């Protein structure tokens, strides 16, 4: 297309263009070639180093565990520790009540229920058998 257009050469410029093309260098000077290739080596080295660098693993959102969720629900570690202490204290009192507890219980019962408290308490079944529940509804 260029040649077809140039073949018209209506302005007489094609001879100048031909001379310009003929005088143009086909290669680059050695020193420039060395500079360009040094740049290329530098870019390749930087790219290789970047690729070799360990990539930080993205933080994944893990679902918190049961104890953590329970702790957060109850108000933190302090609240959980308090609840645990109270539970253990209750268990201890249940299994091995101090000697002062029994007279105190009797005194309170008599105050509330009157003189027949002992009888009423003796007949009180705190954990009734399942048969009783089934028969009595």
């Amino acid at each position, binding site marked *: *297309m*260029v040649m077809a257009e*140039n073949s018209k050469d209506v*302005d*007489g*410029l094609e*001879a*100048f*263009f031909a*001379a*310009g*093309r*003929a*005088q*143009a*260098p*086909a*290669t*680059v*000077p050695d020193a*420039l*070639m060395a*500079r*360009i*290739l040094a*740049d*290329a*080596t530098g*870019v*390749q080295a930087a*790219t*290789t180093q970047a690729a070799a660098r360990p990539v930080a693993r993205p933080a994944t959102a893990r679902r918190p565990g049961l104890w953590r969720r329970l702790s957060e629900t109850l108000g933190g570690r302090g609240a959980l520790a308090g609840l645990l202490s109270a539970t253990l204290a209750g268990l201890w009192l249940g299994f091995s009540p101090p000697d002062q507890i029994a007279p105190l219980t009797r005194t309170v019962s008599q105050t509330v229920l009157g003189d027949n408290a002992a009888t009423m308490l003796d007949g009180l079944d705190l954990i009734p058998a399942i048969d009783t529940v089934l028969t009595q509804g």
Partner: protein
Amino acid sequence: MPYDAISAVSDDALLVMFANGDGEAARMLTLRLAPRVLRLATRMLGDAAEAEDVTQEAMLRLWRIAADWRPGEAQVGTWLYRVASNLCTDRLRRKRPVDIASVPEMPDGRAAPEDDLLDADRARALQDALAQLPERQRQAVILRHLEGLSNPEIAEVMDIGVEAVESLTARGKRALAAALSGRREELGYGHG
């Protein structure tokens, strides 16, 4: 990869090879592309040292973009012409107008017999006249008539439409013809 095999590989593929660490690909791309960039820059700037700097900078930008290059989306050569053209334009806008007497001859590395001397004179006269053109006209004429790019390719390099390219080259050639008309006889075109 042997030289014969690598010389048949496309610019796109060579760039991908370079991005994968192939040093020979860099050498082959430089051999293919750097002379074109150097010619363009020398003609645009009229300064051999500056043209070499532009060539190095344009090639450096090519190395840097290699990892992100998408084969098939653009021609490597066209992209490089565009980068080099922009670098030349930046330099032209920073420096004073070109002094015709300082415009260097295009080095060809050959001993010059008489015909070559005449050719060298013609090439120098052309370079002198090119240096007087507005930079966009100069760029369009160089790419079209000295580098042999098609108008659509030039449009892509210059980021303008094909009609604008045609307009620029036409105006540039008219100005060149006017500038060279007085020298035709002394340069052996007296009867042409």
